């Protein structure tokens, strides 16, 4: 079987773990130790997916390797051991890594498998992919902007009713509020790309007809509470997201564009963007509900998936 997944990681144990996990995709998986070997193998194998050590992302040979892989249409996932979470601002600052999975050791199979399958199959949308089979997702559609606070409050109530803690309920409310607010006010664009509702007061009333409607879905499988918000404009761009995630100014001043995205990222354990440009934006926030922290990690993963035309 010709390998179509290339793993670049200096740790042999991690290489083997990742090979075993991704073997489940049915694709061939090959592992190498460093970027020099990886650059050579990219040319020979023409892989569809690269899984690289997060530590390698900021090393000197990465740009050349990354450019060669992208030119061949390969998607890239960076893995970062939770013990090395201090590297995250540096990785975000590069502005090139669209998929970062922060993980305890050993690597968590679920997140890696889901990310790999989405990239390999091009099947991006739906929070179901992150929840156990059979988990019910509750759906609400916003038809007026003033419904936001009610929907957010009801989400908090229903999460508590299901036995979740104040911590989980308040995080779910926060991310839902920020994502809904972005979808109502920042997503709508006209034919010139002008965001014609971005400057309207957030507490004002707006009818959300047709394409302006915003959908919220949520569900919990005992590990993750997923909150999914989608709009029908598909105007959120990859570079905007990556700039918002790094948001160095927000931490100090609380200001700056993209604060809602930055706050949502820092309020959940995994933030996923599914983008179909011009058609649909879907953001999924995953909150780890397990307690005590145990296998949880103190840093968040993110994915930005862009549908290929």
């Amino acid at each position, binding site marked *: 079987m010709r390998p179509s997944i290339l793993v670049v990681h200096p740790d042999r144990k991690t290489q083997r773990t990742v090979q075993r996990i991704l073997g489940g995709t049915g694709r061939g998986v090959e592992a190498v130790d460093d970027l020099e070997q990886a650059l050579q193998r990219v040319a020979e194998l023409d892989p569809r997916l690269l899984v690289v050590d997060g530590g390698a992302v900021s090393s000197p040979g990465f740009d050349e390797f990354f450019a060669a892989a992208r030119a061949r249409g390969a998607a890239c996932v960076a893995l970062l051991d939770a013990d090395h979470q201090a590297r995250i601002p540096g990785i975000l600052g590069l502005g090139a890594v669209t998929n970062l999975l922060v993980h305890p050791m050993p690597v968590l199979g679920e997140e890696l498998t889901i990310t790999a399958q989405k990239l390999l199959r091009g099947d991006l949308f739906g929070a179901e992919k992150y929840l156990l089979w059979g988990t019910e997702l509750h759906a609400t559609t916003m038809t007026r902007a003033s419904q936001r606070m009610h929907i957010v409050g009801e989400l*908090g109530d229903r999460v508590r009713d299901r036995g979740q803690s104040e911590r989980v309920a308040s995080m779910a*409310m926060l991310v839902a509020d920020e994502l809904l607010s972005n979808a109502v006010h920042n997503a709508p664009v006209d034919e010139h790309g002008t965001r014609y509702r971005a400057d309207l007061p957030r507490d004002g009333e707006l009818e959300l007809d047709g394409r302006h409607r915003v959908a919220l879905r949520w569900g919990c499988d005992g590990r993750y509470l997923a909150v999914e918000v989608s709009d029908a404009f598909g105007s959120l761009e990859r570079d905007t997201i990556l700039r918002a995630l790094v948001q160095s100014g*927000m931490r100090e001043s609380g200001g700056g564009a993209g604060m809602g995205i930055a706050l949502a990222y820092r309020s959940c354990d995994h933030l996923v963007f599914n983008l179909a440009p011009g058609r649909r934006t879907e953001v999924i926030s995953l909150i780890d509900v397990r307690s*005590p922290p145990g296998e949880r990690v103190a840093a968040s993963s993110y994915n930005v998936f862009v549908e290929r035309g």
Partner: protein
Amino acid sequence: MTTRRISVESRGDAIIVDGSIDETSGLVDLLSHARDRRLVLDLGGVAFINSLGVRDWMRLQAAAQRAGIALELRRVAEPLIHQLNVIIATRGGARVASFFAPYACDACGREDSLLIDAVAHAQALARLEPPAMPCADCGAEMAFNDFPERYFSFLSV
């Protein structure tokens, strides 16, 4: 506890703030309750604060500093602690006297938001050691249900 606008009530030497802090809150008005250049806010009932509420909160902090009013925060609820940790500017010059924190019981699975006296436990908190708390259900010692280096970072400035 569906999200509701904030309500403000004076009780003893403190102003009790309940509900959601958002774009409609107008927190700067709270400064009119200051006495002798001091304002004590009881924030135990704050269930929610969004990014626009954060900006309103920072306006309150800035206005208090301009007016020379010392802010004391008591019983600060978890949603507000999260913002104090994520956005340094929200801390302003306020002094946190006590705050809620998440705990979980390994023995019976109960989760609680429990009040920590930031003054009495100052030294332990500086060492990132959460105070021991007994479970209200089974009496076992509860475990702190977050990452101390993250949850207590607001105390380090």
